């Protein structure tokens, strides 16, 4: 009955886990935030919870990784490293855990080896348990992370991603475990990553049992989601069959698609005579009491569909992608097509594309393909760049079977075989010139970046720079509680806001009147620490005031054939692949457009010379917005 604390050597931790006469709990706060609140749970709330979470005695707190690193800088305006530092101050004994997407790290597509290693090294200074997965269960995609984690003296927790269907047999998964152990050696924790909360309790019990039979000394950490409302059942089966660690989170915030409540796990297992090792039940309850009042401020980020979704067993969307998928459906105005998309098209696409694991980035590929298949009316008629990469095997080999030829033909055209022969196979990404990137970042920031800033930049270049600029302008905004930071509809006149800045100093801001002047500017008066301050806002460009002629798809295509390259759909310009004066051939990549986390290369329809680049990297483009111009030499 030993509590595991931060700072123990991995071998010591594993020795304790192997002798455990009960089970341990990981508080997957990060997954709860991602699955049920679009990753928006603020550091402010996590800091409120920190003392009670520390006292609760978890095996680990999953508080970083997944999409959270990106959302930290993109939407929460907090430095992911500083976040860990501040939490560590309040939680000296609790191990911190991350979820790492292997070769995709905390992003959506593969990074070069040297970037992976640098990133892992920086994060390993704060992160004790590294849960690493690959959506194709392709073990080589995780090796660089394994190596760096071991070098840093931290705990490796490789995953086998779990799904259901005739191919997903115990033998298959035991084979995968063997592959992992061949690479890592025995000193690991194995995670069964059930990101969709798929399968029945009985199926999970069987799987845990089968792995335990094959590898009796292997410590198993079961990770699930409560999308169908039955994860407690699966957790129970996992523990009873030999899992040592399970995942759950604080009941004040549990929703539908993330982890189930910790307290329910404890109560259920007690009746089975199993003890949660190191856990202080009072502290578990106290955590929820400490943060309960914050929950209403996050309501705006809860999923558009409320309630459990037992149909997850059909559509298999991972809990972590439920919120963002439903948000897209809502914003895109196709929430009413969800039954078709979720229950008919998604399972069909899933089978057609190989029945691998619906988790990042694979889940996004399945989802966008299914959505586009349903909305466009023509199946596979508008393939994303990532779907093409998948079909070319750039993410790794198909684990069970290759999609049928007709899909290749639909996506790549008649000579798809040639393309597959020429371009197929796993993508070898060349190392990045990190010093050159450091220089670029120095120029963009106007100051030498720290190593951590560089790491964030290498992950998400444009969003990182935006974040650094945000902090310069608005300061350390993570100090603001959700009631301020996430306020909707403005504040009340005379409302008093109290908060502490990053040095702990308390400030008081009283909301004064807002007045519009004759020239359309708005004057917002605030009383800041008893001094009146005026903030002037220029009138915003009225939507629709200057109607932009929308170009049709045909027009955009026609212009492209004349060398006038326009954005074919709405998205952010992720990269421009050419320079002014560069000669390009037909089919050369000109730029990359990013929408819904998916990157789509824009290729040249003509041969010629790049004469002008109109759009800037990072710019949000509407369909028809100019990107660049190619001069076609006269015959």
């Amino acid at each position, binding site marked *: 009955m030993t509590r595991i604390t931060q700072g123990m050597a991995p071998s010591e931790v594993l020795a304790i886990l192997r002798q455990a006469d009960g089970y341990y709990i990981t508080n997957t706060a990060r997954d709860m935030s991602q699955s049920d609140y679009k990753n928006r749970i603020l550091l402010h709330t996590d800091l409120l919870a920190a003392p009670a979470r520390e006292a609760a005695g978890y095996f680990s707190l999953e508080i970083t990784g997944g999409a959270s690193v990106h959302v930290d800088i993109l939407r929460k305006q907090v430095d992911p490293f500083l976040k860990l530092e501040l939490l560590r101050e309040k939680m000296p004994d609790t191990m911190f855990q991350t979820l790492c997407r292997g070769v995709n790290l905390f992003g959506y597509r593969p990074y070069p080896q040297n970037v992976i290693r640098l990133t892992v090294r920086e994060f390993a200074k704060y992160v004790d348990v590294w849960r690493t997965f690959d959506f194709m269960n392709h073990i080589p995609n995780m090796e660089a992370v394994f190596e760096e984690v071991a070098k840093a003296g931290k705990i490796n927790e490789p995953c086998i991603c779990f799904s259901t269907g005739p191919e997903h047999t115990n033998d298959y998964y035991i084979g995968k475990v063997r592959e992992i152990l061949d690479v890592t050696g025995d000193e690991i924790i194995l995670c069964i990553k059930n990101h969709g909360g798929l399968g029945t309790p009985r199926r999970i019990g069987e799987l845990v049992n089968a792995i335990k039979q094959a590898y009796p000394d292997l410590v198993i950490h079961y990770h699930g989601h409560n999308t169908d409302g039955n994860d407690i059942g699966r957790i129970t089966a996992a523990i009873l069959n030999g899992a040592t660690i399970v995942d759950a989170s604080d009941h004040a915030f549990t929703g539908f698609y993330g982890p189930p409540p910790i307290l329910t796990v404890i109560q259920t297992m007690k009746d089975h005579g199993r003890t949660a090792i190191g856990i202080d039940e009072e502290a578990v309850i106290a955590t929820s009491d400490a943060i309960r009042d914050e929950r209403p401020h996050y309501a705006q980020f809860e999923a558009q569909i409320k309630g459990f979704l037992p149909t997850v067993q059909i559509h298999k969307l991972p809990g972590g992608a439920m919120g963002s998928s439903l948000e897209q459906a809502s914003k895109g105005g196709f929430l009413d097509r969800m039954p078709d998309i979720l229950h008919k098209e998604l399972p069909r696409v899933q089978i057609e594309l190989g029945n691998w694991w619906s988790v990042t980035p694979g889940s996004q590929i399945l989802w966008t393909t299914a959505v586009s298949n349903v909305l466009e009316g023509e199946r596979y008629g508008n393939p994303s760049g990532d779907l093409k990469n998948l079909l070319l095997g750039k993410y790794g080999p198909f684990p069970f079977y290759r999609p049928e030829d007709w899909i290749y033909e639909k996506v790549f055209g008649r000579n798809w075989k040639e393309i597959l022969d020429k371009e197929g196979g796993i993508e070898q990404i060349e190392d990045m010139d990190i010093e050159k990137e450091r220089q670029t970042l120095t120029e963009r920031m106007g100051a030498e970046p720290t190593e951590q800033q560089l790491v964030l930049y290498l992950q998400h270049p444009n969003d990182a720079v935006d974040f650094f600029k945000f902090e310069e302008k608005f300061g350390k905004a993570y100090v603001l509680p959700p009631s301020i930071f996430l306020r909707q509809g403005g504040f009340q006149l005379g409302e008093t806001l109290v908060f502490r800045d990053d040095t702990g100093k308390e*400030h008081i801001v009283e909301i004064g009147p807002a007045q519009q002047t004759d020239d359309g500017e708005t004057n917002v008066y605030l009383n800041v620490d008893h001094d009146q301050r*005026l903030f002037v806002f220029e009138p915003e460009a009225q939507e629709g005031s200057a109607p932009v002629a929308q170009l049709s798809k045909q027009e955009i295509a026609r212009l492209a054939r004349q060398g006038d390259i326009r954005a074919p759909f709405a998205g952010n310009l992720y990269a421009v692949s050419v320079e002014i004066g560069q000669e390009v051939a037909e089919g050369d990549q000109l730029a990359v457009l990013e929408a819904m986390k998916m990157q789509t290369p824009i290729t040249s329809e003509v041969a010629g010379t790049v004469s002008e680049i109109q759009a800037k990297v990072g710019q949000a483009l509407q369909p028809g917005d100019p990107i660049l111009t190619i001069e076609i030499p006269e015959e």
Partner: protein
Amino acid sequence: MKTKILVANRGEIAIRIIRAIQELNYDAVAIYETPDRDSRHIRIANEAIWIGDGPRSDYLDIDKVIDAALRSGAVAIHPGYGFLAENPEFARACEDAGLIFIGPASKTIEELGNKVKARQIMADAGIPMVPGTANLSPGEAGLEEAIAFGRQHGYPIMLKATSGGGGRGIRRIENEDELAEQYAIARSEAKAAFNDDSVYLEKVVVRPKHVEVQIIADRKGNTVHLGTRDCSIQRRNQKLIEIAPAFHLTPEQSEAICETAVRAARAANYFNAGTVEFLLDADGSFYFMEINTRLQVEHTVTEMITGIDIVRTQIKLAMGKDLLFTQDDVQPRGHAIEMRINAEDPRNDFMPEGGKTISVYRSPGGYGVRLDGFCYQGFTIPEVYDSLLVKLTVFGWSWHETVDRLRRCLTNFVITGPKTTIPFYLNLINDPDFQAGEFDTSFLDTHDHLFEYEEQVSEVNKLARLIAEIHYKRQNTYAA
């Protein structure tokens, strides 16, 4: 009707004088030019008279000022510093109009204002002097005199306009070639600036300290000093920080300098308050520089360590009273430092920040803290006057207590809108040399790192900007 005194000045010094006038139970009359119509000195005075659109020209217009005094029924005029303060014509015009000029007699101002004449008076009285020349002869002859002086006393030397002052009309010459080059230019510039092309030479005391002595005298010739001040920390010969008493002086040195200052004042038949300026060499010898025949900006530090209200004393003396204290009554104690908080950007060569509006003005207070300012939240700093916003003067019993108090005050002093010298001063007082009292007139030139600091936008103001935006846009677009 109460006795009225007119204050022929603006800004912080006008308010300083108005306060003394009102404390003596007189009424204060302010004057102002149009760009100063929002200045606080108008509100504090008992009455205010508009004298024209200026800028500066009306404050400098003797007839208009005298006329304003006569129209208001004032019996006396306090000139403050700058503008007409050291203009003998103005003092004489007051005397002619039957108005009391609060300061020395016009004749004294005239004699001491002429640098060459002043040197002559002091030399006759046996006051030690930096080697220098009389007014150089016109034309080539003057250049030859200059070259001879340079050969005798060595370089560097200062070429000074006789009618210059306050750091203007001075150039440093490093060698003979430069002298030949600069001589004619200096003359023509002096002509343009002061309508007088006379120039003279002085040997440069390398890296001297600027030490001055406050003196005060009544009409009977009772002359006392109020101790020393160190004004070595300057930029381009303009004082930034003043300290009383002067640092690192032995009691004997201090006594010698102060005694010399009193002798100098007596030699000039000095009446009312004045300042005798000396250069202090590294070897401890000191040389007379000049007598300023006015109230100095930095008089506050002397008031803090002596407890004597210099402006009140000035007025009482001018109104016919005798000095109520003797030299023995003057017992300076502790230390005082004054910092001129200017609307300037030190990192941009002290570029003035005039024209900007003060959006927040929050000043410190408490024990040992004195503020002489005139700004307020919402005040737009006129571009046409000097950039001094407020003088922060702190007192402490020990040097370190004083520096610590100063740091506390600067840290809590919030002025937003224009850039100010506050962050620069914060950097400066944390410098080990400053803390050790090791500074001379080359301090800023030899301490480049003082200019390396970040403009302080307080964290709460950044966050308030975000809150304002969340309010205005009705959501946080950075979190959406």
